[in-house]
């Protein structure tokens, strides 16, 4: 019982209480509201606000555990199933992507699962790449049009597919990468930082390597992120894990922190142009914060293999989207219907669920 009055459960409880009071107040106000023709009824308005919050909460739980931004889930689904303008969806998607990362920052930093030095090191590179990418997007839009974007998306899809396959066959080497030689530059950076791994009940000190190469990779990720306006968690995690040998759980935690940090740069152009509409975005933000906080508390306790399967699933789904979009832009195939996207999502995540159950039963 005392646990409920100590951080982090205290703030979770305060937020839940305010949330419940707000929901009840909104229900009472909207139920008695008299609306004019052409206006939305009070009940419908309450339904949308509460529905957005609930959906956002669910997305945040999955996104934080998978070490990706919720925008990767939010944006394709909103674009596929609602008539909302794509710029408003993209802008709100960025709020979704960044706030689950922001709220998970506190627990990850305190517990040492995330590493601020790695995050700042990567964010410095990510910022440069993303800014250059945004300029590149303007150039390509003006000079190469659909063909250029289609080719780059295809290339990105192929890279992502290769990484997902590598993750599948990589096994424990990826969860806990082995470092044979630490180069001079990485040693000089002093990026390593031991932390207590709850699931193993021991302190993990992880040596790192190839930090110079990770700068180049993160600039590349930033370029693509800035170019397409995509979240970048799906690429930041493997970039740290495969190149710099950051343990997978640490890379996933760093990714959330980095998304929160980096998107503080990316979100302002949308805010300044009015694409983020306060009352529309607010329930998504609230859901991300509550879901993200609970997700972060769970992630600290789960074993790395669980995260790995989720991540592989997300990577394959993102890969399918990129390849079909690329082929569509080149005029090779038509638009992919929403039901097919949904079917692929269900098939992939049925496989993910099966793998997680198998992993949990094996106790490895």
């Amino acid at each position, binding site marked *: 019982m005392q646990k409920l009055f100590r951080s982090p459960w205290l*703030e979770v409880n*305060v*937020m839940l209480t*305010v*949330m419940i009071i*707000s929901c009840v*107040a*909104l229900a009472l106000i*909207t139920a008695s509201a008299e609306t004019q023709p*052409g*206006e*939305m009824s*009070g009940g*419908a*308005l309450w339904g949308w*606000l509460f529905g957005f919050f609930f959906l956002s909460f669910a997305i945040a739980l999955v996104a934080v555990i998978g070490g990706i931004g919720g925008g990767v889930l939010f944006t394709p689904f909103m674009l596929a199933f*609602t*008539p909302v*303008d794509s*710029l*408003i969806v993209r*802008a709100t998607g960025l*709020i979704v992507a960044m*706030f689950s990362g*922001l*709220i998970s*920052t*506190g627990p990850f*930093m*305190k517990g*040492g699962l995330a*590493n*601020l*030095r790695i995050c*700042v*090191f990567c*964010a*410095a590179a990510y*910022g440069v790449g993303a*800014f250059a990418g945004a300029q590149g997007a303007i150039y390509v839009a003006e000079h190469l049009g659909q063909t250029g974007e289609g080719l780059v998306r295809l290339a990105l899809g192929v890279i992502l597919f290769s990484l997902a396959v590598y993750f599948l066959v990589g096994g424990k080497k990826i969860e806990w990468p082995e470092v044979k030689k630490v180069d001079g530059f990485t040693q000089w950076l002093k990026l390593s930082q031991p932390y207590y791994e709850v699931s193993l*009940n*021991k302190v993990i000190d992880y040596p790192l390597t190839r930090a110079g190469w990770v700068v180049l990779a993160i600039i590349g990720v930033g370029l693509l*992120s*800035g170019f397409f306006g995509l979240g970048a968690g799906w690429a930041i995690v493997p970039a740290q894990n495969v190149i710099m040998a950051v343990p997978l759980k640490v890379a996933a935690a760093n990714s959330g922190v980095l998304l929160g*940090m*980096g998107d*503080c*740069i*990316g979100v*302002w*152009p949308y805010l*300044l*142009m*009015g694409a*983020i*509409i*306060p*009352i*529309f975005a*607010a329930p998504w933000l609230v859901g991300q914060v509550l879901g993200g906080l609970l997700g972060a508390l769970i992630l600290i306790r789960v074993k790395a293999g669980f995260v790995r399967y989720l991540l592989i699933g997300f990577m394959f789904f993102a890969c399918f989207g990129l390849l079909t979009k690329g082929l569509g832009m080149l005029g090779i195939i038509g638009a992919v219907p929403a039901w097919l996207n949904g079917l692929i999502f269900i098939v992939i995540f049925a496989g993910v669920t099966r793998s997680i159950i198998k992993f949990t039963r094996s106790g490895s």
Partner: protein
Amino acid sequence: MNVPEMPQMPRAQTIYGAIVYWVTILSCLICMIGPVISVASPDNNVLDPYKLFNAIFEGKDAETVWEEVGGDFPGGHFYLKHLTYGDGFTQLGLALGCSVALWALIAAAISYAADKIYFYTALSLWVAGLVALSMVGIVGMH
């Protein structure tokens, strides 16, 4: 079960985490209360919430939504002039959350500087500078 001795986290890291965490929670609480104020007094808004959602679900772009529902877009920092408005108060919560990395990175940079870790001081200030420039509309990622 024996619990091993916990490693000490660097001061800059815990400061960064704490600032981001509490400011994000504050921003979330503001965004919980804002819509209630907004719906309770629809006239006390830049955008009337009862008209707003219809316009959004009709697929109108952001510029049209602001024009048709609110007259005109008053600028991203409109909360500074309309703090008592429901959506103005909500926008304050959004702006606070979207600028949190700036405040936290400045504090982390000070902490790194105090510990004489100058490389990470410079990197923190570099990223904080990017956020600041983005807030005033000079740098945009997407």
